[in-house]
């Protein structure tokens, strides 16, 4: 109850400081390993499309579930750096699992880990820093209902 009230207070007294500054921006990367010692490249989670068609753009006004979920994961990634919590780690991991299952990957007996890289501008160049690496999780099934 107190926790909910604590979450409600910034809603009744919002700050509305949208884009006050352009902070370093997180990206989520993951890898699905066959064994804990396997060394394969990291993949960007749900990379954005090259282009969006006019029809998709119109539809996105009404239904943009994947994108909004990605934005939620970006919020979780930011909170993992500011105030690390098991909740944010779990939220990111279970959504990566769902993404993998819906894209046809089998998770059975695999190992999943993710990391968060932050991109920022230094003078006119971009630099990246790895600021978080999750623990390696052994996956024992590919059911997503239980998540």
């Amino acid at each position, binding site marked *: 109850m107190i*926790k*909910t009230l604590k*979450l*409600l207070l*910034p*809603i*009744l007294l*919002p*700050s*509305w*400081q*949208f*884009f*006050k*500054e*352009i902070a370093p*921006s*997180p*990206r989520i990367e993951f890898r699905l390993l066959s064994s804990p010692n396997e060394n394969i490249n990291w993949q960007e989670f749900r990379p*954005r*499309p*090259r*282009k*969006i068609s006019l029809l998709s*753009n119109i539809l*996105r*006004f*009404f*239904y*943009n*579930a994947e*994108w*909004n*979920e*990605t*934005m*939620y994961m*970006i*919020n979780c990634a930011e*909170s993992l750096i500011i105030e690390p*919590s098991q*909740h*944010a780690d779990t*939220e990111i991991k*279970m959504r990566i699992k*769902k993404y993998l299952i819906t894209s046809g990957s089998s998770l059975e007996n695999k190992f999943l880990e993710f990391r968060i890289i932050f*991109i*920022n*501008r230094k003078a006119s160049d*971009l630099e990246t820093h790895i600021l978080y690496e999750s623990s390696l999780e052994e996956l024992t099934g590919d059911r*997503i*209902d239980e*998540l």
Partner: protein
Amino acid sequence: MNFDQAIRLTEILLSISLIQQSFEHKSSFSNEKRHFIPRIIFSLLLLLGISTKWVLLILLILGLLILNRFQGPYNGGCDRMTLLILCCLNFIHFTQNLLLQEIAFLYLALQVTMSYFIAGWVKITNPDWRSGQALKDIFHFSAYPASEAIRSLKEHPNFLFMLSWFTILIEFLFPLAFFSKVILYIALGLVFSFHLGNTLLFGFNRFLWIWLAAYPSLIWLQGKIQVLVNYN
């Protein structure tokens, strides 16, 4: 627009926004769907005006459960505005005193105004926003551009400079819209076009619908201000 009409229009637009938001969770995890499916059902009741007072209370409780589920807002400012509107409407329906009801609706109108004004204030006081650099950074490396093609806008500094100042001015000057009904409608058209642009470029579709739901409070407040000015 009188008070009752503005309240009813807010309820209708809020219900549409809630259905839109909730429908996006149709393929999510079961522990999310158990909040969002009832929210669609109660939003439909709100749209139809059935047992509005109790439906609003249930929608507020569901909103708090969702807030708890995600340990904060799922969609940042959009969820904040949704809950703010729900809190104000609940207060209005559960108090009998017209003055208190109007104060609650006034609070909503002021918060919507502040949502633009403060966002404009933090930009106008930031040199990176004034030069167009902030917007260039958003397109260059932030997580928000919805496609790689949109990122190429970073190559157009003059366009970004103008877009920065368009954003700053419509947000910062928004409170001046209350001077007259015509100015308010023009200002609402401009900020709505700003939300349309945000949806096209950054995929912020939920903001468009929920901010629209708060506009009746602004139209009502402008009418009240007009009456006060004419009276004096």
